């Protein structure tokens, strides 16, 4: 007996903004209204009204799937009810705030995972997202704005969208909206204007959002070329460059927190260069037995973090860090090694050089990138 064929995956569309209040939710609902007018069965799976009248008015006539209530530490939280949506099985489901983290006790920890369940069931999803939630931008956003964004979304989830639409307003218009109390309450708005919503922060975020959307379009076009090279070549605006070795980036992880910065940056550069991306930890033993429990936990956490970003990880057995890195690089066709800055020079390093020095000396034709420190 053959199992029933899985339904075709739903279409995945993201309205991308650069800050709260640019109008993502409004546009998402507007798209839902447009579909409804055309006779498409579109429902609201989750929508965050934020008390914005203009936005709330756009829900009129659209069916809202009731939310699921969950208790956590004595407070009732409301989350999207994925099971009910699956049973209701609309053609299109509108889901606000893709980067949302579900309350503990939910079936899945992230809303994007719920969205994946809907897509897998053949339900198309239209959703909203702000650029600062992109995992690979987390350190840069913190450096720029002083805000450490807690709710992040792996870049590959966004890459999978069939369509990303930029929702744009000028920072000036956005600040006016804040001043008029359209986005937040008066008190919260004043704070926001002074901190996150400064003209320069908003401009920088806006530029990043535009560039990211452009990048996603380029990647889609390039993927099409790979599928149909003969056809694409004639249409491509840039003359085809000679074939070259595919880039491969290797990230050297250790127990230091800076490893996270390294992983994010490596992932981002790999995405732009269309490079493969690997991460390793060099250890005398595969079980990491020589590490203190804290360090072992940190290394494992960093490797897990890398895997979440779809980076292949490996623990490489070796007594000598530099030699281990270089040997792995040579065996795996690595073109670029990402490393952190070497720390204090102890007597051993004074004798043999820091790890970085030794990697550079041994690496021969491999490039080595020492990633910027993010500070404020």
């Amino acid at each position: 007996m053959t199992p029933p064929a899985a339904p075709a995956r739903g279409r995945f569309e993201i309205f991308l903004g650069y800050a709260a209040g640019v109008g993502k939710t409004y546009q998402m609902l507007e798209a839902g209204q447009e579909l409804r007018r055309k006779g498409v069965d579109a429902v609201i799976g989750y929508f965050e009204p934020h008390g914005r009248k203009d936005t709330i008015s756009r829900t009129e006539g659209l069916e809202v799937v009731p939310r699921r209530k969950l208790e956590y530490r004595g407070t009732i939280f409301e989350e999207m009810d994925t099971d009910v949506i699956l049973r209701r099985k609309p053609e299109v489901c509108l889901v606000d705030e893709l980067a949302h983290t579900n309350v503990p006790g939910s079936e899945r920890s992230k809303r994007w995972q719920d969205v994946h369940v809907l897509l897998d069931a053949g339900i198309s999803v239209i959703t909203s997202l702000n650029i600062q939630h992109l995992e690979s931008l987390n350190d840069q956003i913190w450096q720029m704005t002083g805000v450490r964004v807690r709710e992040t979304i792996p870049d590959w989830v966004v890459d999978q969208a069939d369509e990303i639409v930029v929702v744009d307003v000028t920072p000036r218009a956005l600040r006016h909206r804040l001043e008029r109390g359209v986005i937040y309450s008066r008190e919260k708005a004043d704070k926001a204007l002074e901190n996150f919503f400064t003209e320069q922060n908003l401009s920088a975020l806006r530029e990043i959002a535009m560039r990211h959307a452009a990048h996603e379009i380029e990647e889609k076009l390039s993927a099409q070329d790979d599928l149909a090279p003969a056809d694409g070549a004639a249409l491509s605006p840039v003359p085809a460059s000679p074939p070259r070795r595919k880039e491969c980036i290797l990230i050297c992880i250790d127990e230091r927190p800076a490893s996270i910065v390294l992983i994010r940056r490596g992932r981002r550069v790999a995405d732009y260069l269309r490079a493969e991306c690997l991460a390793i930890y060099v250890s005398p033993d595969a079980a990491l037995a020589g590490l203190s429990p804290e360090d072992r936990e940190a290394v494992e956490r960093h490797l897990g973090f890398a895997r979440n970003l779809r980076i292949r990880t490996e623990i490489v057995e070796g007594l000598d860090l530099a030699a281990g890195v270089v040997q792995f690089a040579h065996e795996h066709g690595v073109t670029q090694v990402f490393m952190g800055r070497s720390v204090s020079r102890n007597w051993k390093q004074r004798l043999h050089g820091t790890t970085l020095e030794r990697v550079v000396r041994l690496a021969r034709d491999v490039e080595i990138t020492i990633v910027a420190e993010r500070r404020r």
Partner: protein
Amino acid sequence: MPDQRPSPEELLRRVEAEERQASRGRLKIFLGYASRVGKSFRMLDEGRRRKQRGQDVVIGFIQSKVEPEVQCLVGTLEVIPGLRLRSDGTEVEVLDVIAILKRHPQVCLVDELARDNPPGSRNPKRWQDVQELLGAGITVVTAVNLQHIAERQDAIERITGKRAQQTVPEAFIRSADEIVIVDAPPEDLHQREPGSAADTRRLSELRELALLMAAEVVDAQLHQCLQLQGVEVFLGSQERILVCITPRSNARRMLESGRRNAERFHCGFLAVYVRQAGLPPADEELVEKYLALARESGAEVHILEAADSAQAILDFARAHAVTQLFVGHSLNSRWREMLFGNPLDQMIRAADAMDVRIFPHPASS
């Protein structure tokens, strides 16, 4: 650290610029990558909202054939009828600049910024009409299609095979106080008749171009704003690659990689050389060759005079908001001094706000 304080001349220039700006109307542009993305709708919707907030808004020009939802908005606003002129046997509508100046609204909406006026008009181009309105202190909200920007015609032609007859200079677009990108999926544009895959592809390419152009404008405005405030903050919203050229580096590989990376990131690409005294003629020749190669690769080449080359490069990199510094190393017998004595070692340690990419020298392999 270079002296960042503005000179008295610079301060005067800024004050004058501010005064000019204060009496001038503001220019706001809605930029779309094709027709039917919804530029006119956004422009008129902005007019409606401004009117709701008590501003005196008029329509200076709107196309006669518009979608029903756009027509709805037109109905809510005062229209100053255009002048009808005959040109080559057809009737053309142009902005009635005199009527608008006389009416003197706070805000004037002008659709289709890139139109040419027929011969004998007050100004040859509509954007010049708009400039007059701005000069009279009237704020203008307008809409333009990327395909009508003069300097982008080569890129547009590569994508669409066509050049626009009527264009507006990019400098005018960049002079806008605010620019808004109007984005929509290509599929939404050919709702009535589904477009071919080639159409969709062309539209996607135009869309990417529009987003990148808007990002450039935002970046330029951001740096201007930072400069005016006199603050030196590093935002890194745009990648910038700087290749350091020395006679001993594998410049060819660094430049090739720099060019490719700049293409992928759509970012700034610079090359720098710090002049060294007493270089052997063979090395001088090499440097000249590398600099020529850098220019060919599309890098903006800078030659610096400084005693401390590492410091000079770092200062330069900071001033140009560089995010990726490409340096070469050589593994000859003196590798340790080359790399970890002065100046490279110093550079790697000091360049902590940017990625440093070290390129091996072929002699070492």
